[in-house]
């Protein structure tokens, strides 16, 4: 069962993401911000990271950069799930090493479709 790290500072968003992913057969570990996510990422392996952008302490772009510096996460898919939709932010996401950019709110079926596509 693929393991996904879901990162969002909003409890309701974490719940929606977990509900959607676990219903589709994925195992989910939740993190409340980039720092929490990075700590969890260092203690176990994940098949995919799904992260919000605007979070306290460490945002999604910062988390992506830190994870990409680590050999364990060189090729792990990292999807940004955020309200941010400007081209500038998307370019920054791409430069940081993100695999894709999803704008909130997400459609559960579409999210699962994208995850299936990027998890090898």
């Amino acid at each position, binding site marked *: 069962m693929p393991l996904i790290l879901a990162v969002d500072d*909003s409890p309701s968003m974490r719940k929606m993401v977990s509900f959607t992913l676990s219903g589709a057969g994925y195992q989910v570990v939740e993190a409340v911000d980039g720092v929490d996510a990075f700590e969890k990422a260092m203690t176990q392996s994940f098949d995919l990271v799904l992260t919000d952008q605007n979070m306290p302490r460490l945002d999604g772009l910062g988390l992506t950069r830190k994870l990409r510096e680590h050999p364990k996460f060189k090729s792990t898919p990292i999807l940004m799930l955020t309200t*941010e*939709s400007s081209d500038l932010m998307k370019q920054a996401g791409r430069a940081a090493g993100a695999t*894709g950019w*999803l*704008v909130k709110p997400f459609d559960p079926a*579409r999210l699962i479709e*994208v995850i299936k*596509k990027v998890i090898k």
Partner: protein
Amino acid sequence: MQPDQTACSVPTVELPVMLVAEVQDSLLVVVHDLNRLDGLLTHAMENLMQRFTSASADLADPSLQAVKELAGVRMALHAAVTELQFQDMASQLIGHTSKILQGCAYRLASEAMGYEDGEAVPFVEDVPDRPNPVTQDEMQAGSVELF
């Protein structure tokens, strides 16, 4: 309130201190109300999520899997996931707007009246210098882009 361009090259407007104080008060009242609204939304969302989770768990009961009549209910719950993300977006909108209003209130006061020696200068969070991160006007699913 005539524009005064003699003192310096930047045009300035003189305002009665009482007016500035009233505008600052009004801005701070709005910030306070926005925070209350955020609290109400958070509380409502917590309750909503509790009921949503409970209903989903009940429907996941193996003994109910064969009940065809419940398929529509399951589909409706899944479809509601998109709309149930409203609180995250509303909170971000409220937070961003509050910071701007609070920044305006304190800047207006400090520019117009300044602070007396020994008076504590209130801590004001940086006013966001970029547009609101929430651009959506409707609760429709957002775009997906793979790099």
